[in-house]
């Protein structure tokens, strides 16, 4: 018997990351075009990449949602219809929108399915009812909502409900922070956020008769990790679990998709999460770059322990060594090098469905067979084959 599980929705910051997320187990991916989305730093898709990505995902039964979640201005809306026509032609599965003008434009011109972005900060039943009347089919709830509240929203509206299960979090109510707009001249609701909430501040407290000064990273949030709460998500009937991070690495896209899909796969088969693998899954989640984990407001409203009172630390436990471009059985792997490694190094290959394997670099060659002392990022090299390795597997190394 197969047990119901929510959709696992992974970020696809680029075509390559889309493939990684799909192959590592995402049920759906979300991505941005060249305009209209909120992630200016991610390698947003050109039309052709979008076409390739949709074909790649759909041929593997994976859905594709396109983000149009900027708060668009009038002049942007003039350009939107042309893009919508392309999305309709590509048969994408939904658009993710936060602005009523965009919803109206999408619904008046196309029959695309509209998901309400978390940017719209939908927090309660009444709000969900309003957006339902506006024509949205799914709501990505604000990250401030608990799973139990989400369940009530779902029960009251029968709308599809999506919640964030993993990734970085805005400290503000989404869509309610314009720090960058006024301090950097960049619209944070149109992809220009300068992450001012991650800065250290010197705080002067106004007391009755004195000023007290303290320094703190007081408005920086820890990252969300909801793996332990998967039973609650399932029990509440949450339709989709979203992973934040279109700007994050291949390693991130692959690891998070693999871990959550394995966990959900376990539940699908056994109807519970009582698995020895839970510790393993958690340990894998710690290997990708993050700022300490919290369950945010999934269980109870986020409290003091959700604040990340330290400098954002880019030290990663693991670095991605490369992506497998070809696995020539019994002979070699061709690897697109992302960071340098050397003969003698022990690398780890992340297969799509099976446990991580160690790979000893007994030889390192150029494509013409010349031995190399070190791999160079941006090149392709030959290393030994390892059983189970496949095209698009991530290869990593302990930092």
């Amino acid at each position, binding site marked *: 018997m197969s047990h119901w599980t929510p959709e696992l929705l992974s970020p696809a910051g680029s075509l390559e990351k889309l493939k990684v997320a799909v192959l590592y187990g995402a049920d759906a991916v979300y991505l941005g075009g*060249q*305009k209209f989305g909120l992630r*200016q730093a991610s390698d*947003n898709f*050109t039309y*052709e990449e979008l076409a*390739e990505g949709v074909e790649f995902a759909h041929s593997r039964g994976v859905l594709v949602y396109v983000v149009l979640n*900027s*708060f668009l*201005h*009038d002049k942007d*809306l003039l350009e939107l219809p042309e893009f919508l026509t392309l999305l309709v032609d590509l048969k994408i599965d939904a658009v993710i929108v936060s*602005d*009523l*003008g965009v919803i*109206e*434009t999408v619904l008046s011109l196309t029959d695309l399915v509209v998901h309400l972005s978390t940017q719209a900060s*939908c*927090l309660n*039943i009444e*709000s969900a009812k*309003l957006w339902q*009347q*506006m024509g949205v089919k799914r709501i990505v709830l604000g990250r401030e909502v608990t799973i139990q*509240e989400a369940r009530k929203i779902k029960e009251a509206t029968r709308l599809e409900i999506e919640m964030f299960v993993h990734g970085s979090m805005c400290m*503000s*109510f989404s869509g*309610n922070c314009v*720090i960058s707009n006024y*301090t950097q*001249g960049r*619209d944070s*609701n*149109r*992809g220009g956020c300068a992450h*001012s909430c991650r*800065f*250290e*501040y*010197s*705080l*002067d*407290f106004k007391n009755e008769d004195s000023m007290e000064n*303290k320094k*703190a990273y*007081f*408005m920086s*949030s820890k990252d969300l990790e909801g793996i332990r709460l998967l039973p609650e998500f399932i029990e509440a009937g949450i339709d989709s679990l979203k992973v934040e991070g279109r700007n994050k690495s291949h390693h991130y896209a692959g690891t998070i998709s693999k871990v959550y899909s394995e966990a959900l796969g376990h539940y699908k088969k056994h109807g519970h999460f009582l698995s020895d693998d839970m510790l393993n899954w958690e340990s894998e989640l710690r290997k990708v770059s993050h700022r300490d984990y919290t369950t945010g*407001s999934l269980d109870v409203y986020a*409290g*003091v322990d959700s604040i990340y009172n330290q400098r954002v630390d880019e030290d990663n436990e693991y670095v991605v060594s490369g992506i497998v*471009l*070809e696995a020539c059985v019994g002979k070699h792997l061709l690897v697109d090098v992302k960071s340098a490694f050397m003969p003698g190094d022990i690398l780890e290959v992340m297969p799509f469905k099976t446990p991580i394997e160690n790979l000893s670099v007994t030889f390192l060659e*150029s*494509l*013409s067979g*010349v031995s190399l002392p070190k791999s160079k990022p*941006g090149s*392709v090299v030959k290393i030994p084959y390892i059983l189970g390795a496949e095209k*698009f597997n991530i290869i990593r190394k302990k930092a």
Partner: protein
Amino acid sequence: MNHSQTLVTYVRNIAELNFLAENHNPQVKIELILGTSLLSRFFDNSEHELIELLRKARQMNFSVTLEWDVLNQEDRFLKTIQLIEKLPMHDFFAIRVQDPGAVSFIKEKYPWLKIHLILENGNHNLIGLKKWSEFLGPQLDRLVLSNELSKELLADYSKALSIPIEILTFGRILLFYSPRKLLSPVEKKAVHDQTIEAFGTSEESPHSGFPLIENLHGTFMFNVKDLYLLDQLQALNEMGIHFLRVDLRFDDSFNKFSKTILELFAGTITEPEMSLRQNNPRPLIKGFYNINKSDVLFAKLKNKRTQRLDDFYIGEIVDVERDQQLALLVKSTHWDLSQLPEVKMITPEGKEKILQFTWVKSSLGESVKSVEQNDLVLVPYVNGVTVKTQVYLNPKT
């Protein structure tokens, strides 16, 4: 001051109410915003104090609106509704709401109560504004628009919409609203519902002294400069913007400035700027009123990347071994190699090279006759071609 304009301002206590009653010129239209700590971000009145203020203000013939601008998750929202249901809603001229949940609730449960819809976050397009107007119909009495709209847009919207518009003309600019309590943990006191105020400065930001407030509803950060558009009353009037909000709730501003503001709206003074500038704790700015260029980055992004010409696209060079070969990652779905093709290569610098592939081999050195998407093949070395060069079938062949 043109008497078609209304001064919209907050009143927190009886003393402020009395002051306005005693000092305001009856020809000046004033609308008072009242609130209570559970419904409003920055009011700390109890429900009882609110009702008392409302009663008095009505006796004084003021037009009174109720502010419900907090954003609430479901469980907190239910508590808020319980309070709303206890209030004498018929005595309010209108209710000011931002959360779509509050909008929906009022529309359904109080269809006779006018709505002043706060659209200060986003809502920078006419299609959306019109949709809100259509959705709320005659119940919508006013749109409270964002301070990020330039004067051109405000004028356009005012012309295109039949609904009156309100904007903030003097006061703090809210930058950030979080439901989490962020100051009390630093102050090392237990997290509580009392109000804490502070000023934040970061070495990573060119600005210093961001006012911060933590209260029952979470944490708020304001800009280091306050908004000042009171020298634009005439221009705003000409645009058809008749509801001008002045926020004197912070920094003892009510005591310092209310008289001057009343005089300005009565037309007995024309230029309060000097007095406000001298006495306001922060510099004053016009914000985005003159021009909003915060989307420059957004515009730059357009067409930043080279577009692929997919009908003829083959793939991308991913490795170059000088004088040996190039590694080509095939991106097209299928590529028939029974005839070796003429190709056009476009380097990242935009240089074009047209040539014939004399061979195409696998990584084992074997000749290949057809390849699929994501296959890697080796092709002859071409001088000047680097990684990320895009490869196309030459359309002329």
